[in-house]
């Protein structure tokens, strides 16, 4: 379904799609190893945060909007992932 003269955002979005697929496979692989611990948790959650930012900025097109819009999503992401991290660290002895 390719067409000539594609819009400028297609190539970066195609690369982002491939990166998102690869990062998903890496998260699954980590899950399959059964590893646990703070470093693993931070790696998996950090990977999810990066993926969300990629979807928001490239797929949703927020990188070409005012900082306010990106800031709302980024602020939400930092707050939610930060609280998840705090909840996880509460259980680490």
């Amino acid at each position, binding site marked *: *379904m390719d*067409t000539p*003269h*594609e*819009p*400028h*955002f*297609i190539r970066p*979005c*195609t690369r982002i*799609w491939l990166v*998102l*697929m690869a990062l*998903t*496979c890496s*998260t*699954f692989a*980590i*899950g*399959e190893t059964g590893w*646990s611990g703070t470093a*693993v*948790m931070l790696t*998996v*959650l950090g*990977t*999810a945060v990066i*993926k*969300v930012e990629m*979807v*928001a900025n*490239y*797929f*949703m*097109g*927020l990188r*070409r*909007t*005012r900082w306010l*819009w990106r800031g*709302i*999503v980024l602020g*939400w992401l930092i*707050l*939610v*992932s930060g*609280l*998840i991290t705090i*909840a*996880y660290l*509460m*259980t680490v002895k």
Partner: protein
Amino acid sequence: MINNTRTSHEIHATPPGDLAIWFFIFAELLAFGVFFVAYAFARAHNVELFNESQQHLNRLSGAINTLVLITSSYFMVRAVAAIKQGYSILCARWIASAIGLGFVFLAIKMAEFHEKFSAGISLSTNTFYMFYLSLTLFHFMHVILGMVILAAIMLKARNGSYSPANHTGVETGASYWHMVDLLWIILFPLVYVIR
């Protein structure tokens, strides 16, 4: 420089699509955010139970569903690109492909639910399953709503209702669909992987 035309590399004043959908998206992010944090703190008080119960989830189907939603989301990027070039039918085909992957997601998720319900697992089994079932069912309903929105946009695209100058509807539907993908990207590692 700030403007509202979406044909250049310039910074736009508002996000793609109808601005109203973005308030809806932010409300959804807030609701799911509360849900995610509640899950994390509930887990902090029942670590052994959550870790043990999580072992019985089908991580492979969760991962495949992540790949399916990401690809479906990418197809919507292609649909927006197609309509910006004036290819209505091509746009409708990309949307149909995105909807098709939505059905794949639902089928995999229903198989997972069937497996759990057949094993006698329900919302009242334990705290982990209460969160697992309610979170994934809540997201499941959003996938269905997204597919209904995409189907309506696909029909309009096929009828030639959109053009390079008027494609806000396609961008609106795509934004909602990306949000559904974005939420699953957090839900999958949180519920299926992190222990």
